[in-house]
Structure formats: C-alpha cells, structure tokens
C-alpha cells in the first residue's frame, strides 16, 4: 500500500513536468488566435525542448562552475517543489518532507542561482537581467508568503493538503472576502514570478525590456532546455497552487482509479481555464515600465496584507 502511495506521489510530480510545455503551448496558441495569427501547434514547446536537448552546448571560457551547475540546481529544486504541491490527490504527496514555507524557498533558490549565472558570464545583459530579477523577486516574495499565510491561517496548518482538505470540508464557509483578495494577489504574483506580460514579455528577446531572457542569454543546448523546462513547470506550479488551493473541487480524496481519473480531468480543465485567462490578460495589457513594477507588486502586497489582516483585526464587510 505504501508503495502505491509513493508511486502516486511521484506521478503527481510527473504530471506537472509533463504537462508544463503543453500549458505553455496552449497559452501561445490562444494568444496567436486572439491576435488573428495562426500560431504553432500546442505541442510546439515539446519539439523546442527536444531540439534543444539534442543540440551541442557552447560554454563561455570565462565562466566558473556555477554556470554549469545552475541548470541542474534550477531543475532539481523545481522538481522537489512539484512533490510538495498536490495536483490530483490530497492523500499522496510527500508532505512529510516540507510545507508551503519550504515551497516558497525552494522557488527562491533557483532564482538566486539564476541571478548568479547571469552575472557569471560577465555579459552586460546578464547583469542587467539579474539585477532586475532580484528587484522584482524581493518585492514578490513577501507578498507570496503573506498569501500563503492567509490560507494557512484559515486552515490552521501550512501543509497544502490539509488546507485543501479544510476548504473541501467547510465548503462555502471558507469563502470570505479575504480569500478573494488572496486569490487576486496570488494571481498578480504569478504574473510577476513567472515573467508574464505586465511585468516581463515572454515572447521577445528585445534587449531593453527583457528580464528572464536576459539572464539565460548565454545558455544553449541541454542547459537551456533544462532552464526553459524548469520555468515552464514553475508557471504550471503556480497555476496548480491557484487552482487547487482556491478551487479544490474535484480533487481526489480517496485512493481509487475512478476518483483519481476524475480528479485528473478536473485538474486539466482548471489549468486550461487559467491558461485561457492568462492568454486573455496578456493580449489585453501592455507591458509595464520597469519602474512601475514595484507599484504593481506593491498592490499585490497590500491586497495580501489586507487578506491576512482580515483574518483577525479587519472584519471586512457588514
């Protein structure tokens, strides 16, 4: 029995890794359709990754071991954080290994090393990208922690599974205004953390505006593929957090093939909806000026702060 649980836990993490390129493909396709373009198929990110994995790698002579280690660190820490977030079942993740606070720092680790890698090659763009990334993440991280604390206070635990279980048990009781604030805040943070449109444009390599792209400019071949895959998975990870913590309906509560299958269908539907929503937002907004980004994240932080305060002091509403 324990073996089956362990397998399901691994399977949950594998789902995120496998579906991540598909989610990106769906977003790109939807954006293309909304802009009256044909667009590549939704499976294009898989081919891109495969091609990059097959290509030869070029590494600058001036780089140190950090440059070579960063893709592995990024990918493995995203992989570990996938194990902490329940996707289709709340009984089978490896929750004894860590909670949501560990998750926040597992997501911060690759960012730190990515910034180092940007600096390591010594190119001007890399340094620019690193400094921008650090500026954004230093304002996004406290907001993320506040959002997760808000949900943790609702359930009385920082384990993602237990939070989801509490919300499923209490039903509509848990949907007080603070939850909505936390949701909006987490969505804004997702946009910033994953380099989506109002903060960073994922589609261009325009030198003046890029953030994430600037840091990984020196990478090629397998390393690039690993980093790209990790950042795709990160987006799907945030979507999973949004979908499963705020709308946990349909997630499997017992171990049976039918409920797991049902839960899988629900999961894909929810993620699909989030992808469509993101595509709509990305086509309808323009990129913010870099110095406006702290304002954007400040809004996210204040929303999260209000959400957390409304747990105890501010009794929002009549």
């Amino acid at each position, binding site marked *: 029995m324990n073996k089956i649980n362990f397998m399901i836990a691994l399977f949950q993490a594998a789902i995120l890794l496998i579906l991540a390129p598909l989610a990106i493909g769906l977003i790109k396709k939807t954006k293309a359709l909304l802009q009256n373009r044909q667009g590549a198929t939704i499976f294009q990110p898989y081919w891109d990754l495969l091609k990059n994995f097959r290509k030869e790698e070029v590494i600058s002579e001036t780089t140190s071991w950090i440059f070579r280690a960063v893709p592995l660190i990024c990918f493995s820490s995203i992989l570990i954080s996938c194990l902490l977030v329940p996707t289709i079942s709340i009984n089978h993740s490896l929750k004894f290994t860590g909670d949501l606070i560990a998750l926040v720092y597992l997501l911060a680790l690759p960012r730190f090393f990515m910034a180092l890698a940007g600096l390591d090659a010594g190119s001007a763009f890399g340094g620019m990208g690193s400094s921008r990334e650090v500026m954004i993440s230093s304002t996004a991280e406290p907001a993320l922690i506040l959002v997760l604390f808000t949900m943790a206070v609702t359930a009385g635990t920082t384990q993602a599974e237990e939070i989801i279980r509490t919300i499923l048990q209490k039903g509509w009781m848990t*949907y007080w205004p603070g939850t909505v604030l936390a949701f909006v805040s987490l969505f804004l943070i997702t946009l910033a953390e994953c380099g989506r449109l109002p903060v960073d444009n994922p589609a261009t390599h325009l030198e003046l505006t890029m953030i994430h792209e600037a840091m990984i400019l020196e990478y090629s071949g397998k390393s690039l593929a690993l980093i790209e895959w990790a950042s795709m998975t990160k987006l799907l990870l945030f979507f999973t957090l949004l979908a499963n913590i705020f709308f946990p309906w349909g997630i499997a509560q017992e171990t049976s093939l039918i409920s797991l299958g049902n839960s899988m269908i629900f999961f894909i539907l929810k993620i699909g909806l989030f992808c469509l929503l993101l595509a709509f937002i990305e086509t309808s907004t323009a990129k913010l000026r870099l110095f406006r980004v702290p*304002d954007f994240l400040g809004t996210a932080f*204040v929303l999260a*702060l209000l959400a957390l305060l409304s747990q105890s002091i501010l009794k*929002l*509403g*009549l």
Partner: protein
Amino acid sequence: MNTHSFYLTQAITFFSALSLVSAFGMLSLRTLRLCIRTYAAQSLCLGFTAFLLGLSLRHYHVAIIAMVVMIVKGLLIPWFLDKVMEEVRIKRELDPFVSYPISMFIGVGLALVSYSLVDRVIMNDPFAAKGFSLALTLILLGLWLMVSRKKAMIQVLGLLVVENGLFVAALSTSFSMPMIVELGLVFDLLIAVVIMGMLIFRIQNTFSSINTEHLNRLKG
C-alpha cells in the same frame, strides 16, 4: 440559521467587503476613467448590500433607497463624470503628493486605525461595530484620496467616497435615515457633482489643466 439566510449574509459580507477593496483600487489606479468606473462599482456594491440587507431584515424602505442609490450613484454620477472627462481630456494622475505604494500602505494603516478605534467604542452591537468601522474606513480613505492627489477629478471622487462612507454609517447604525432624508441626500449629491463638474470645467478653462496646485497662485 437556515441555508437561505446563510447565503444572504455571505452575499452581504462579500459585497460590502468589495466596496472596501474598490476604495483601495481607487488608491492604486492611475487612469482617471478607471477610477470613475471603480467608484461606480463601489456604489453599486454598497447599493446591492443595502438592498439585500433591506430584504433580509424586512426594512423595505431601505431596499427602495438602495435602488435609488444604485441608479444615481452607480450610473448617473459616473456617466456625468465620464462626460466631464471627455471634455477635459486629461487621462492620468502623474505626480501625486504621495507615491502610489506608500499611499496604499497609509490606506491600510487608516483601515487598521478605524477598525481598532471602533472596536473600543462600540462593544455591545457587533453588526453596528463592523458596519461603522467599514464606514469610518471609507471616510478616512476618501479624505486621504482628497489630500494626497493633485487632480481636481480625483478630489471629487474622494468626496464621493466619503459620502459612500456616510451612507454605510447611516445604514449600519440605524438602518439608514428616514426615506425622505436619504432621497434628499442622494439628489443633493447629484446637484453637488454637477456643480463640481462645472468647477472642473472652469479650472480647466482658466489653467488648461485640472491640477489644483495652480489654484494656490494669486492671480490679478
């Protein structure tokens, strides 16, 4: 408590909380037209809250007032302010006295102050305490909007947020004032907004800007 009234209370809590959130939205948005939309949303939320409250407590005059409020403050006043914006052709507040993130944080501080103040003063009636602290928060946020911005349009919106706060105060402490008083207030407000719109026009014509800083200068 049966499920029907449970959902009703949930809806009342939700919509009145949205009014607070929209006040913070007005503190964070730069585009003046979006601010006007947010004000409209706030008034509609408050009107809907009052409507549901009137129905659930069987104070039908509150429901009638709520409908008038929704029409006047949610539709007529925003429509008129939109017209003014079309004429004035100034779209954004660029350099407020206090920067946007700091003004949001001060907003949170004001909310905390009013909630903790009201908590100490009104202890025996939880409904009035919650409602009055919401009202006080809205009033303070409206005042803060008025003093921290330079554009006349935002200052008008700040005044309107203060008025919304007063509406909540009346609603939560005494289930709104007598109908004739409330209706009189709403129509007075409409006239006031028209006059303020004219004033914005005049400021625009005289200084070709709706920046109220220009008004400090003496003009011979």
